[in-house]
């Protein structure tokens, strides 16, 4: 099997941003001015190594602030490693913040096309499956209205439908397995889980350990930017639970 994601000695640091000093303050504090640069950093990921094989589903668990979302944005490519190596082979489809690429003043239909292209299709390919996307989202009567008029649920439903209809190769999921009301939740899960099971490489960040156990074959436990455990999902989860309940 081939490796789809390879991460070696990955380090991500963020500069500690204390209120950026305004000019007035700088002048007032001129007498204690020192040319020393702000070298304080927050280490979000501390030299981690892992890889994901083709078709695998890797769950990432850990407390808030453990570095899970930072890792996802690095895998997505919206953020760059400070040090180390990170390789992702294939088209990445994020299910992070649904509708991030939507523009409120564009209609549902226009947003489908724009987002389909942003997610890796050509315009022609999006147009070919436009009807399928609209059907799935169940908002055909509002599709020619600007999305700012949509309810939060409709907005999410449309965004979700676009994302899963773009032939994902690598899914990067942050908690989102299902959206909308109960019936749509069932439907969206019913579409997403088979996709994952059918061999789309997936990285799934979640606090819902049951879901991780259900869909992931492997899991990784992050804490303060370090990998605490890695292995089969049930094993890692039981170690994690053991630690929390101590």
């Amino acid at each position, binding site marked *: 099997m081939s490796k789809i994601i390879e991460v070696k000695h990955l380090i991500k640091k963020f500069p500690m941003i204390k209120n950026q000093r305004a000019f007035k303050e700088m002048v007032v504090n001129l007498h204690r001015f020192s040319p020393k640069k702000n070298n304080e950093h927050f280490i979000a990921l501390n030299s981690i190594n892992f890889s994901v094989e083709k078709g695998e589903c890797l769950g990432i668990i850990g407390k808030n602030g453990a570095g899970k979302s930072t890792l996802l944005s690095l895998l*997505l490519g*919206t953020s*760059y490693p400070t040090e180390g190596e990170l390789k992702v082979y294939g088209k990445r489809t*994020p299910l992070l913040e649904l509708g991030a*690429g939507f523009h409120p*003043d564009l209609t549902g239909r226009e947003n489908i096309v724009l987002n389909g292209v942003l*997610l890796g299709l050509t*315009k022609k390919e999006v147009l070919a499956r436009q009807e399928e996307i609209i059907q799935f989202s169940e908002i055909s009567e509002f599709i020619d209205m600007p999305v700012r008029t949509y309810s939060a649920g409709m907005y999410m439903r449309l965004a979700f439908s676009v994302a899963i209809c773009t032939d994902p190769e690598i899914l990067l999921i942050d908690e989102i397995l299902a959206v909308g009301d109960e019936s749509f939740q069932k439907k969206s899960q019913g579409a997403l889980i088979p996709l994952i099971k059918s061999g789309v490489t997936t990285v799934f960040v979640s606090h819902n350990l049951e879901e991780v156990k259900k869909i992931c074959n492997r899991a990784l436990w992050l804490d303060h930017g370090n990998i605490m455990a890695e292995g089969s999902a049930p094993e890692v989860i039981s170690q994690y639970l053991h630690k929390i309940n101590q």
Partner: protein
Amino acid sequence: MFKLNRSLQRKFDLLYLLTYKEITLKYKRTVLGIFWSLLNPIFSALVFMVAFKIFMRFKIENYTFFLLSALFPWNWFLSSITISARSLVDNVTLIKKVIFPRQYLIISVILAQLVHLFFSMPILFVFSLYSNHGISFLAWGIGIPLIILIQFVFTFGVSLIISISNTFYRDIEYLIAVLINLAFWMTPITYPMSSIPEKFRSLFLLNPLTSIMSVWRGLLFENKILWDYLFIALGIAIALLTLGTMIFKKMEKRLDEVL
């Protein structure tokens, strides 16, 4: 029609859609819509004409055409720079949650503003038609596409630097607002090159906009391609784009830390 390979086609589509969005959204909730892009330069031209033609009484033959031939291209530059300064800052969610080449945001702004320039081109065409020199293929078929390309490259280079710097220091957009005003008066737009004292002229040529505007004026006013100015403009444009791309590539890697 020729067929592009898929990834190239996708890039083209993305650029097209972003530009389309830029154009349609600007006037989305207005009555006059895209006509504003025609009215806007006309109004600003009127202001200058009243000031310089009626009040100051510049002794320049056909001052209206003289002014417009540089003012319209200048407006393209001005609006591109002003809008693209905020284009990264204003698209935080897109930058943080979606992957695509970030410079497309800037290209789409400049292209959208170019469409607005195209809207005002018929005015220049009519003026040329009735001027002493008439219309020539050399000017309209070769010269104008060339200078548009050069000005595009130049504007793109400048915008790359401004937009990425503005994400780190929001002071940049305020600084630009001041500098752009200075640049306007330091470029022969409302006045001819000949009114600049001889000893300062070479100094003026350091301003790349001087050569760009001179080429525009030469094309529209005299039906001539001023090759010397054109090559100066081209050289500076390429240099700026190279510099801009380098700075952008380097600072882009830290975008997630500052947005």
